[in-house]
């Protein structure tokens, strides 16, 4: 996992940034992580040829390769456009048939003679569960990554790294079943405890039942996104130039100060990219949430009461018995999820671009 993004990152430097951003998040994230490296070993003159080299031939390997990458980049755009068009074509008739407000109605009954369905509660649940999952997962993941890259003995670090990567290979249905059958018990007890002592905070209010809640879903999600964020940020931290680290140490910094002044600023765009990848997985997670959440259709910030629902989980639940309008409605919900993901990605790109300028000047 660790090595591949770097290769694709180097290959990707020729492509247009936009296509990279949407099409191959893995490559994109590593590319940004690599970006400062490319300033260290400037590739512009290396690839383009020095003054003494002959000019590029009209139909050389250079041009052919350029054409290939261009085609690959365009293909991604075409696929995305095709998906969007398909979703819209299928969704519009269902949206027309909807007798309630698509944005505000809390419920999902598109198979009725008078179809009624609304996306508000689902979109809210999707974002809420993902954000909480990230809040829980990111600090832990960064801690693991820093430990693996800078504290653990080399050998231990490598083998632990492998184990973390293995966690990424566990199918989500396994996480879901585990969450539903085993983890819900402890979460229920913990929720009851939270409710007793912190019930005055609306997040932990209510009077039960507890367990099959947003909290359970978010915890399971957090475990699922942990390996992604960990492996990517570990790779990023390992890329920190030794010179920077040694310089910090030489100036009298402690290990923690060195991490804070040299490693973290250097890795910041990479961390952001890793978090965004994790968020992408959390937003799109289907079966684990369909199994663990208590599936209700209401907008509530209460984290511990049974309930919660997400767009993807709702698709998994409703698809089997959906009629034509039902499927159209589900596709419309998919379109909203698509839009949410797109917005998240664009925001992440924007942040990374801003940060990169800062880091480059700092490095």
């Amino acid at each position, binding site marked *: 996992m660790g090595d591949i993004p770097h290769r694709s990152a180097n290959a990707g430097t020729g492509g247009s940034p936009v296509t990279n951003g949407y099409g191959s998040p893995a490559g994109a994230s590593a590319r940004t992580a690599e970006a400062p490296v490319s300033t260290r070993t400037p590739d512009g003159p290396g690839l383009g040829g020095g003054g003494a080299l002959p000019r590029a031939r009209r139909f050389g390997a250079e041009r052919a390769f350029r054409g290939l990458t261009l085609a690959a980049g365009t293909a991604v755009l075409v696929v995305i456009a095709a998906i969007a068009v398909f979703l819209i074509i299928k969704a519009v008739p269902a949206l027309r048939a909807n007798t309630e407000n698509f944005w505000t109605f809390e419920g999902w*009954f598109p*198979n009725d003679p008078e179809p009624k369905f609304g996306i508000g509660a689902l979109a809210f649940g999707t974002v809420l569960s993902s954000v909480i999952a990230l809040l829980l997962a990111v600090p832990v993941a960064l801690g693991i990554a820093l430990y693996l890259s800078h504290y653990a003995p080399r050998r231990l670090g490598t083998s632990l790294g492998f184990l973390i990567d293995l966690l990424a290979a566990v199918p989500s249905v396994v996480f879901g079943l585990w969450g539903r059958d*085993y983890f*819900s018990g402890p979460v229920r007890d913990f929720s009851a405890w939270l409710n007793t002592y912190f019930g005055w905070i609306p997040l932990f209010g209510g009077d039960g039942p507890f*367990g*099959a809640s947003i909290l359970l879903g978010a915890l399971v999600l957090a475990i699922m996104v942990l390996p992604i964020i960990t492996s990517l940020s570990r790779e990023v931290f390992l890329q920190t130039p030794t010179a920077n680290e040694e310089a910090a140490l030489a100036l009298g910094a402690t290990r923690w100060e060195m991490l804070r002044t040299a490693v973290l600023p250097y890795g910041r765009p990479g961390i952001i990219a890793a978090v965004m990848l994790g968020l992408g997985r959390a937003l799109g997670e289907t079966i684990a949430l369909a199994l663990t959440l208590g599936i209700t259709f209401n907008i509530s910030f209460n984290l511990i009461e049974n*309930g919660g629902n997400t767009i993807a989980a709702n698709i*998994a639940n409703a698809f089997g018995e959906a009629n034509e309008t039902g499927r159209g409605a589900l596709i419309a919900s998919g379109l909203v999820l698509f839009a949410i993901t797109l917005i998240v990605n664009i925001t992440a790109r924007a942040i990374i671009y801003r940060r990169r300028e800062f880091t480059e000047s700092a490095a």
Partner: protein
Amino acid sequence: MKLQRHGTLACLALTATLALSACGSDNNEPASPSASGSSAAADCATGTLNAQGSSAQKNAMAEWIKAYQQKCQGVTINYEPSGSGAGIEAFIAGTADFAGSDSALKEDQQPKADARCATGKAVNLPMVIGPVAVAYNLTGVENLQLKPATLAKIFAGKITKWDDAAIKADNPDAKLPATAIQTVHRSDSSGTTDNFTDFLGKTAEADWTFGKAKEWKAPGGTGAKGSDGVASRVKGAEGAIGYMEWSFAENAGLGIAKVGNGAGEFAELTAESAGKTIQGAAIEGQGNDLKMKIDYNTKEAGAYPIVLVTYEIVCEKGTAADKLPLVKGFLGYAASTEGQAELTELGYAPLPETVRTKVETAVTSLS
């Protein structure tokens, strides 16, 4: 838990298959040509059948397919439990040779299905009876009895404590704790929910105002995906109650409530008591179309009223000539006494004899 349950199921299925195949090789191969009456049951044909639909009957299908493939060489039957709606769509589109469905073809589906069967019409054959169990988790309370009206109030959220007067009235002898009731329903759309809400609507009109649908429409309660999800959630929480396919309640070791029927008694859920409700059901379809109308208020003594009939939807005439013998052979086996006898162990109820013979005749006359 999950693994164990699946393990048990798998073991059951395996044992049943082994037992069957043993019987099969002993009895059928030499016997089937000479056996006069039920020779249709062991009719072998070759080829491949693709079917899909209801997941409520997937265990029955898996069992029949295993048994039939062992009996007959060169047969491949695929049943994809993609949901009734998807099954009917696939049948109409011609990608499924027959569809399994939790409900008979609806009026708007019938013409499309008929069009698919070039020369004939599509018929509904009841094949699997799936009783719906109302299972609960309440320490110290066994043999819970619930009238439909009480059940409706519980699931509508009007009764919130186990020691409510209405539940006490149904269970004069039980010691009911003051535990809060947690209702669990299916979060995925399903025929089980459809039948359960239909039952509540027909038997407790005053208390159930949410109509019948494949989606759960009552407010409150906790959703869980699939009957196994409902069983798991009920098992995991003291004071929980939920409805699910019978086998899941049994496998999870949950208490199953006795449900009040139209005769005014509380019926325990058994294969026999569920069969009685079907026996009393009227057949609405014409000719070979055996679409049934279940009377949830059945006055039949000892009948357990919450049952789900799942159908196989096939072409009465017009099945492709190369598939026809296999469709007849397989469905004939499913409708045979032998095929139906296997169902009990899987948590289904066998078709009552009167209905079964009609189905068998209908299968024989497919052309």
